[in-house]
């Protein structure tokens, strides 16, 4: 950030000599920038606004008044009704379950993603290409064809009805995150490793002292993605969790809509909106690390 500011200042200083017309031009361009970004932003989040607004509409009128963004009257009943959940379990329980699964899996995905990525990105070893191909391959088979054999494995492990199938595999690395972190590690000049090695660092020391601080942006990205994807995943939960008391939010949301009977859309949109809050907060909390210039410090040394 500081560096960015200094750079800006330098630029500004060099432009101060320019005429006032230049200043106006700059102001105009900045205004145009904000107006355009905002306008386009509204288009981007319209569906989200629609969903949130719908959560304040009367359930039966949601689809009839789909054209109107703003509800005629704001109702909060959808939230109180939805929060009640079902089968004696409120959404409090479901949120708790979601947090447990999501946070555990994310810790696993981040830790394993970074460690394995370092192995692939920085070492030459026999069979590297083979294992890398295997890793890529895991992303190319549709889940539908592997889910039954996988279910059998978890069944043999006696993990059905626990959160283990939803969390433990993440501690062994997810291809997407491994590959992502690999790309960022490869972006770090190798001379830095070597310098540290000469200073007496082992590979493990290099990993913690050089690599980790340098790839904070990709670690943050991994956190955000893993959190979001685990939070949204309902199919794994549907397969492996049988008791309503252990359902996460994503699965509980499905219970509002049933094509063969009355669906409580109002409550569904209310709880869907609410379920976006943690994902949104995680993003807001972490994204600032993408703004501040953490990664540059290493290079200065």
């Amino acid at each position: 950030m500081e560096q960015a500011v200094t750079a800006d200042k330098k630029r500004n200083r060099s432009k101060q000599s320019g005429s006032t017309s230049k200043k106006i031009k700059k102001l105009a361009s900045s205004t145009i920038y904000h107006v355009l970004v905002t306008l386009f932003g509204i288009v981007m989040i319209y569906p989200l606004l629609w969903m949130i607004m719908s959560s304040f509409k009367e359930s039966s009128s949601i689809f009839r008044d789909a054209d109107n963004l703003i509800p005629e009257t704001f109702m909060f009943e959808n939230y109180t009704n939805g929060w009640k959940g079902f089968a004696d379990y409120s959404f409090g329980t479901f949120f708790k379950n979601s947090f447990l699964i999501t946070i555990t899996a994310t810790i696993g995905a981040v830790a394993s993603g970074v460690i394995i990525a370092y192995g692939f990105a920085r070492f030459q070893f026999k069979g590297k290409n083979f294992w890398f191909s295997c890793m890529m391959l895991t992303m190319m088979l549709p889940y539908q064809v592997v889910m039954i054999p996988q279910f059998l494995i978890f069944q043999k492990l006696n993990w059905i009805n626990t959160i283990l199938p939803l969390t433990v595999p993440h501690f062994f690395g997810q291809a997407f995150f491994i590959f992502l972190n690999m790309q960022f590690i490869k972006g770090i000049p190798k001379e830095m490793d070597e310098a540290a090695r000469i200073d007496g660092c082992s590979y493990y020391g290099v990993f913690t002292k050089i690599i980790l601080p340098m790839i904070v942006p990709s670690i943050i990205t991994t956190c955000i993605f893993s959190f979001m994807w685990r939070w949204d995943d309902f199919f794994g939960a549907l397969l492996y969790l049988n008791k309503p008391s252990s359902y996460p939010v994503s699965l509980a949301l499905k219970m509002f809509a049933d094509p063969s009977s009355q669906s409580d859309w109002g409550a569904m949109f209310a709880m869907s909106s609410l379920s976006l809050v943690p994902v949104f907060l995680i993003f807001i909390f972490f994204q600032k690390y993408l703004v501040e210039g953490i990664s540059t410090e290493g290079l200065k040394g």
Partner: protein
Amino acid sequence: MKKVRQQRKPSGGIRAVLCHEQAAGYVFIAPFIIGFMIFTIIPIIASFLLAFTDYDILSKPSFIGLDNFIKMFTADSKFIKSLEVTFFYAVVSTPLRLLMALVVAMILVRPSKLSAIYRAVYYLPSIIGGSVAVAVMWKQIFSSDGVINALLMSVGIPCEQSWLGNKNTAIWVLILLSVWQFGSSMLIFLAGLKQIPRTLYEAAIVDGAGKIQSFFKITLPLLTPTIFFNLVMQTINGFMAFTQSYIITGGKPLNSTLFYAFYLYQKAFTNYDMGYACAMAWVLLVIVASVTAILFKSSGRWVYYESKE
């Protein structure tokens, strides 16, 4: 365990160092190998073997040789159609989405008081992903009496077109939806941009380079690893696309939005033809793996790593 101990032993000589590196590499990727062995390899092999069987999930599979594959390419016009649709979708939507993500990331990397909010706003469509709300909205917007046609009308182009109902335009609506959800690629680009040392830009300014020059001389080359990553992942995702077909169009109209993965799902769980679905999965795997391999082969020419080996 043995490898770890070996690694810890102080060692000298080129040969020992090499061993050292070999071992350390395996130590770091060990979690992956273990997980792969426990959770992944068996399902993958099972799905491969099942591709040569008639397997209805509920009873025992029977070996039928290549019948599934023969049927696919000779007697299943929907299979061919879904392949075409998916190819088109992947090839068109991936570059568009990446371009969009890159442009917006470039715009939003500019520090401003509002940038946090802007980023959130542009990322949000990705958060709601494949929810019902999106499906409903998207149908609404592109319906014959929807927002798009109203807009066209207001600029003097009367249009009664049903964008999702027309077999030529329906796929474009889905492509647009995918481009709209560029948030995750954008985030990765932002992270990539963040990793580029500011010092390089400062040096460039001192050298008198303009914005455009420094974009092509610094930003773009240093961003290639990220671009490559996004390209590979989005291509794979494009081929594996499922949700939009599933929640918005159901493959209609006239199968013009029938994604491969969606057809596969129908085969497996609506028609209980898991053997056929497995065969389809492996055809898809071969295609996606080939495309990915080509991308990797090409990467040597245009992807620039600071740590060139």
